[in-house]
């Protein structure tokens, strides 16, 4: 269960992942409440929030930066997921790419998928000023302050950059002092969107390093050759003590999570978000 207001007793959260503790989740069977709590079942759909499209920008030929302004204030962490609902009811989840902002703004990176009902609509038909409904934020793949010296490794493919870039920004803003290594992968250079921004960030912050990786046939200077996850895994002898974030293709995330763990990272320090693609309906 999850408390929507007061925190559950610490004893009821023992052994739970830190990001879930932070969001006031707890197993009901362990909880002896010490104060009133308004509770919700996990993954229960809470209230829907109205939002307007305020910006559409193409970051690459098939990646759209969609910026929404929402009406009711709510709490979220960059990297969490939000369900976007089209007026006809079609729902898809996307990761939040921006840190909470006083202007009630949310940013998403939407990749155009072949036959993707929602993504095609968002790219081609959704217009500035149009209204969408959005869910509250869900998911445990996000940054938490504390252990600021811990080295961070982040690896992702395609629009998996959205949450990872957000998490890096969040960590830097919150004063993370340990090394932060981001590996972003794509088949071709077009898919490595925001690379100038990443490189600028790497110039500005001494502890941030960005490695764009190309897995296709194109050989280019300034890019690592191979899949982002493989390049990331081979970058360190041991990942003991590292905090790791993985976002992208489900099978890749699953395999890499195991490899990262076998290389020494603690399971509690691995945060993963697999991007499941809904099968096309015709």
């Amino acid at each position, binding site marked *: 269960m999850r408390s929507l207001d007061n925190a559950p007793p610490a004893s009821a959260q*023992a*052994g739970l992942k830190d990001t879930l503790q932070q969001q006031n989740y707890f197993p009901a069977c362990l909880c002896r409440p010490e104060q009133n709590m308004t509770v919700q079942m996990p993954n229960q759909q809470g209230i829907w929030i109205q939002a307007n499209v305020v910006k559409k920008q193409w970051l690459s030929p098939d990646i759209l930066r969609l910026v929404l302004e929402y009406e009711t204030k709510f709490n979220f962490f960059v990297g969490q997921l939000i369900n976007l609902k089209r007026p006809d009811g079609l729902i898809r989840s996307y990761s939040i790419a921006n840190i909470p902002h006083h202007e009630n703004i949310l940013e998403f990176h939407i990749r155009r998928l072949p036959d993707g009902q929602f993504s095609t609509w968002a790219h081609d038909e959704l217009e500035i000023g149009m209204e969408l409904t959005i869910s509250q934020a869900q998911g445990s793949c996000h940054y938490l302050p504390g252990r600021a010296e811990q080295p961070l490794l982040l690896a992702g493919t395609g629009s998996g950059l959205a949450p990872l870039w957000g998490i890096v920004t969040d960590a830097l803003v919150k004063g993370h002092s340990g090394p932060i290594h981001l590996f972003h992968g794509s088949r071709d250079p077009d898919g490595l969107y925001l690379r100038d921004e990443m490189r600028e960030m790497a110039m500005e912050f001494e502890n941030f390093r960005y490695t764009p990786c190309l897995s296709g046939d194109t050989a280019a200077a300034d890019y690592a050759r191979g899949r982002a996850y493989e390049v990331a895994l081979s970058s360190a002898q041991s990942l003991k003590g590292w905090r790791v974030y993985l976002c992208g293709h489900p099978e890749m995330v699953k395999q890499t999570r*195991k490899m990262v*763990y*076998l290389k*020494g990272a*603690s*399971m*509690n320090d691995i945060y993963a978000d697999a991007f499941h693609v809904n099968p096309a309906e015709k």
Partner: protein
Amino acid sequence: MSATQDTTLNETLFDKIGGAPAVEAAVDIFYRKVLMDYRINRFFENTDMDTQRAKQKAFLTMAFGGPNNYTGTDMRNAHARFIKMGLDDSHFDAVMENLGATLEELDVPQELIAEVAAIAESTRNDVLNR
């Protein structure tokens, strides 16, 4: 992690080892050893890591003398399909070896390791469905 000098007589094995935090520390090391052990890792190929880790936590809590609801039935059911894959004493021995190595890595005193091993050993017949 290790037992303190002034352990009292009524302190349980679970307390002496370090309780829930000790289980938390041990499960990470133990599960990694199991996955890397070529003798047994094929039995873990297709398992979900979170589910498996939760099960190993329950097992280690029991083996450390902690609170548990162990009846043996779950252990039998969970391993039934592995018996068909050839699970036998040699694999159980390998797990016991990994358990011992985990506790040594955490500097648990030998006499406590022996107590844990005895409890873990008591599940052998359930695991192997005998």
